């Protein structure tokens, strides 16, 4: 296992030398060799623990689980442990920790060289996250629990955990027919709008390989999208408050409900590396929400982009628990100018 390792004497490990000292002293005081033999036996435990000290650094841990899941869901996965060394490993506890998932600890029996042990585990999805992350910690104090060795190393897994969906009513939002009727595509959507650098959420089919080869980094082709999507969701936040996650869950649920009704939904947030997304695909919408980290207050340019994508007659839903009054004023003015109806989605009662 690549990473760090440490060794320490456990509390139980202090008992043998203490017992040996006491028995040795008693042996001298009483001139009794039996007690000296027992004292040697106590020291023998300590030496045996050192000679047979656990081997954990050669264990490689691989965790698997579904790539996509939802917060609150229990997902089934596996923990695979392989002994990459040339000697038998020790009985060990392996703990896999990964952001967004409950940590899991499994017991791994002694493994011969090259052997693999596998166990199926069920883990609770704790938080919304997207990305590759994970560490594993292998701890063993075989055979007597006197000397403990631990090794920590990377054991990354790819995870996109969607926010937990909540029931929503479209309420004042337009129905699918109404939305489709108002949102008129002004362009075919096949015309090339331009190229830009790859951002989280872009699919591999969007990559423009020729430009990528030329520039040496991933470049995607941005096509002209249909304007007049009709429904846009602008995440404002602010993040970090207890109401942030419920707000994201509410936004995701609204987007999914609208998409299920046949609407294409535009998602906007001021987060570096997270491009705006316009789609009717449920998975895409949820992936985008999963990638939300801590967006800042949307700048006027992003608001303008959202209004343009929504198009005249469409509706822009601002998901926010709080925003500066000036921002509200400017956004309202811009929406009025663009002919877009502005609505507010919040996870807290309006003040």
């Amino acid at each position: 296992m690549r990473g760090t390792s440490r060794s320490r004497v456990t509390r139980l490990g202090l008992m043998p030398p203490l017992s040996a000292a006491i028995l040795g002293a008693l042996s001298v005081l009483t001139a009794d060799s039996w007690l000296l033999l027992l004292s040697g036996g106590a020291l023998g435990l300590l030496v045996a623990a050192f000679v047979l000290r656990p081997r954990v650094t050669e264990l490689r841990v691989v965790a698997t689980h579904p790539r996509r899941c939802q917060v609150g869901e229990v997902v089934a996965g596996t923990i695979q442990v392989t002994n990459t060394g040339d000697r038998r490993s020790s009985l060990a506890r392996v703990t896999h920790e990964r952001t967004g998932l409950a940590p899991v600890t499994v017991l791994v029996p002694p493994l011969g060289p090259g052997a693999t042990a596998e166990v199926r585990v069920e883990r609770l999805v704790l938080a919304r996250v997207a990305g590759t992350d994970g560490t594993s910690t292998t701890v063993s104090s075989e055979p007597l629990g006197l000397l403990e060795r631990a090794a920590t190393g990377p054991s990354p897994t790819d995870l996109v955990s969607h926010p937990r969906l909540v029931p929503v009513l479209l309420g004042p939002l337009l129905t699918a027919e109404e939305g489709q009727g108002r949102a008129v595509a002004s362009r075919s959507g096949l015309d090339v709008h331009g190229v830009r650098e790859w951002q989280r959420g872009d699919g591999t089919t969007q990559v423009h390989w020729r430009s990528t080869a030329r520039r040496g980094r991933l470049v995607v082709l941005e096509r002209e999208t249909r304007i007049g999507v009709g429904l846009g969701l602008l995440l404002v936040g602010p993040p970090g408050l207890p109401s942030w996650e419920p707000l994201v869950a509410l936004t995701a649920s609204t987007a999914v409900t609208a998409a299920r009704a046949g609407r294409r939904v535009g998602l906007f947030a001021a987060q570096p590396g997270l491009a705006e997304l316009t789609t009717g695909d449920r998975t895409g919408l949820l992936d985008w929400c999963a990638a939300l980290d801590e967006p800042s207050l949307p700048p006027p340019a992003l608001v303008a982009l959202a209004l343009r994508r929504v198009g005249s007659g469409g509706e822009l839903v601002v998901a926010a628990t709080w925003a500066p009054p000036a921002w509200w004023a400017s956004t309202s003015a811009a929406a009025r100018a663009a002919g877009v109806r502005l609505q507010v989605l919040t996870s807290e009662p309006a003040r």
Partner: protein
Amino acid sequence: MNRITTSTSGPYVHALGLRIAVVVVGLAGLYSLPASGLVQPALTTVSALLYVAAACASVQYSSPGGHKARKVLSIAWLVSVGLYVGITSASGLADSGPAGLGPLLALLLVGLHIAHGLVLNSRRDLLVGVTVGLFMLVLASGLSPGPAVAGPLVVGWPAAVVCLVLAHRVQELGLVSAVADVRRQPGVPRPGVQGALVARTAVTVAVSVLVGTIVFLLLPQPDGLSARSRLLGGQQPGDQQGSTPGRDASFYSGGSMNLNARGSLGSDPVIDVPAGTGELWRSAVLDVYDGTSWNDSGLLSASGDLVGGVAPIDPADGGLPTGPTLTADVRAYAAFQGVVAAPGRVVRVVADSPVTSLGESVLSLTRPPTGQTAYTVTVVLPATGSRALTGISGSDQIDGRFTQLPAELPTRVRELAATLTAGAPNRAAAVRAVETYLRANERYDLASPVAPDGEDAVDDFLFTSHAGFCEHFASAEAVLLRAAGIPARLATGFAYGQPLQDGRIVMRSANAHAWVEVWYPGAGWSPSDPTAGAALAPANTSVLSRLTSWLGSVLGSAWSRALLALGLVALGLLGWLLVRVRSRRLRAAYPLPTGPRERPTHPLFAAFARLEAALVVVGRPREPSESLAELGGRLPDPALAPALRTMEQQCYALVPVPVEDAQHAERALDDAAARVISGSVVAFVTRR
């Protein structure tokens, strides 16, 4: 706290093994107590049965109701034992003093052990049980004078190590949510999980015991007592600790003789005498028996220096020195204590150094500083032989102290004496009857048990232990004869030495001996040795006894201890080497598989194989040395390069490819294969 249940199974759950190991440690602790004399063996057996029953009950009745009942029973039992010990200590401790604390503490521990056996539910309970068992072992080891505690120690020590190992595994099991299964490795003859765990336990026990023994051998032995004296029950001179006094060759030179003394005598030469001058060389006689020891009642009546080296007439002989005389020259060695030994009644001693009479029968020489001296002794030989003694008759005109017996002598001894001598027609026949009885019913054992305090030593020898050495045989005969009204006394000295090349007999310390002298009217004192011909105790010939004897000789020297430690280290290294060689051979015979094991079965590689097949069909197969990147560059298909990268990731990356990406790449490979077949990809890039 991990609750141990019996319903769990599998190689990782060692609940049953842990329970068994704990019970073994507990039994070892219980049986170590009688070895140190703290608890009676019968009580130990009953306690062991109760403990096993309690441990079984803790398994059998594991329901909440059963647990509660066991807990109540355990507390009640502990309170009862505590009360008993408390009352006993309050009433009897004042009499016995601190020496009575050991048995009370042992009794309390036994009670606690049985009470705790009822509540062996969790890992913590089991560890407490091990601790109590070990504490009993420590207590017994600290108080045991002999090797009897070795058995419980040899069993209890490894069992305690096994307990620690298994308890650790149970603890580990309680900290995890699942246990991994090892994938089968077909054709690899390596031990499975169970075998590995058992082997690891065995290695742990072996290493800890081996290291503990080596450490014990290398550590300096405690001062005051040698390891031999403690471990093997032998008492060195001057070892007077506890209730068992020691003895040596000087013990047989008169004064007194304690029948409860034990210890080895050594092999130093004391005197050498001409061959054919008699087997029993008497140094002193003892006439008063008090139930535990023999004493010389005339010791205090020293008569001062002898004029001309002529001994006084023994008043017990009635002033009639009769019979043939014999003169022998005796050479004394450094171990000679100064007491004149002679094969009969001394009538003259000629020596360079002054001769002193110590009492009626003990003659002493003043030893020169060199320790070596010589003297010539003239004796009247005693009357011996059945023919000569059978015809002797007459009344006993002798001092009454030669028929003295303690008033506390048990009646059964007197009854036995009466039974043995009832049919004897004369004194010689009565003596032979007693000798025959002792030789037939008692065993010779130098490590015979010591009579309990307050018990008559002869009674204990005749009716309880049935084991003893020359002192006990001679004492028993003297007491039985006195009980039958026949005057007798205890003689001490040297007997049955080893011949030398110059025709002399050497008497060593180990030849110190005790026998009986019986009074025959008109003939005087005649020797009788009931020890000669007695059966040896079978324990002396056992393997354990021989092993103990060998260990004793090894532990007696620092060099031999170091040598033994070195041997054990070599043994450990040899074992380690054998394991390493076997492991290397296994690795050589069954090399580890390399590369991704999933390769042949993963759908992604199957799709790539289809693409390779398609290329073969169109006549542009993948060349043997063509890498994935080169192949991607040769085929102008934009979707192919990401798919090949995904395949590369599946091959070499630490993290497996997500299923969705693998499926996407698989589709891309199949699409590429389809396009190759359909001719849509016709513009193969020529390789540079």
